[in-house]
């Protein structure tokens, strides 16, 4: 398998002027990824799928990452080649922000296996995929308004508190349960 840098060179040769960069992964796995800039992601994806020597014909996984500290949402795709038996190649896309500009080009027209995964990302992270054939919520119901996998999501506070909470749970439980009223007289 070629390195991420080599694949970047290939993409630049195949799609001239593509806005791409390599994101190094300092972890021992050293699974570096390729960040696709806005605009020509679909074109680059088709190139990755069809270019001889790459033939990344399978998108095995697509998932989302919320980066509130950087102010964007990220979508990660893992690509393999069944024909040439290599992979994975990791590509990423980033939204402009986490509020109103969360639209990214859908890669479902390139890899059909992204369809449900992109619906899941739309459901749980709130990334809107432009060009997706059937963009609906996948796991939550249609009337649901939140995006539960975002880090600032506040879940409904509806579970039964344990009687002896501690730590963060104690801090939350303080808002729910009254403290014991001190009994008159000596304790039993």
């Amino acid at each position, binding site marked *: 398998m070629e390195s991420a840098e080599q694949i970047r060179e290939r993409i630049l040769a195949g799609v001239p002027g593509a806005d791409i960069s390599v994101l190094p992964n300092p972890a021992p796995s050293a699974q570096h990824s390729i960040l696709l800039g806005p605009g020509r992601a679909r074109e680059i994806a088709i190139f990755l799928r069809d270019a001889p020597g790459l033939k990344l014909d399978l998108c095995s996984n697509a998932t989302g990452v919320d980066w509130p500290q950087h102010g964007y949402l990220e979508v990660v795709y893992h690509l393999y080649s069944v024909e040439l038996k290599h992979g994975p190649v990791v590509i990423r896309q980033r939204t402009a922000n986490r509020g109103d500009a969360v639209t990214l080009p859908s890669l479902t027209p390139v890899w059909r296996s992204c369809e449900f995964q992109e619906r899941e990302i739309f459901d749980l992270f709130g990334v809107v995929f432009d060009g997706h054939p059937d963009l609906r919520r996948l796991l939550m119901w249609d009337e649901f308004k939140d995006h539960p996998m975002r880090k600032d999501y506040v879940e409904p506070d509806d579970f039964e508190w344990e009687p002896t909470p501690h730590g963060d749970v104690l801090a939350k439980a303080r808002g729910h349960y009254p*403290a*014991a009223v001190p009994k008159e007289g000596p304790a039993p």
Partner: protein
Amino acid sequence: MSEPEPPKAAPTDADRAELRRHGVLLTSMDELCAWGRSHSVWPLQFGLACCAIEMIAASMARFDIARFGSEVFRASPRQADLLIVSGTVTKKMAPAVVRLWNQMPDPKYCIAMGACAISGGPFKQGYNVLKGIDRYVPVDIYIPGCPPRPEALLHGLMRLQERIRERAVDGAGRVTGAAAAECPVPEYGGHDLEPPQNPGLWQPPVLVRKDGA
């Protein structure tokens, strides 16, 4: 119109054992019917998660739920007497479960099988899991376990049979003292199910903190 009669205190299994010792097998038509109903509890063929696998195991030869007359898993709620909520009830699934319960004819019974159906279990802090089916449906028997073994399900079924024999059924075929036959089906809301529970059935427990803060 006369006042409805207060429910008669039905004999317990201990009373029946005492009567049997004296050679009395059946005392009334009600008793005969209750005996028959308690040994033909037809469950709804309905599974939600891993507890359903144990339920299936209970129906197979090794554990053989047919010994208790409950092997007839019905594919339609209209023919079922028993709703075994076997597994995690997600909030998306909860209205469907309540609707199934509403479609079952009286007299009907509900078993909450496993930690998830009782309280949400390991997923109780999750945003998408209902924290116990008893928030929407009146539960007769709770079977703890994660998942409970088939023996536990059979034990729960035996306890349910005891309850069926102890509780009379009124003229409309309803279990005396049972909650309303129709439970309101929750709506899908913007952030949670609405209402989050049926207040007539379930209220959050009042716990008191120990810390005094």
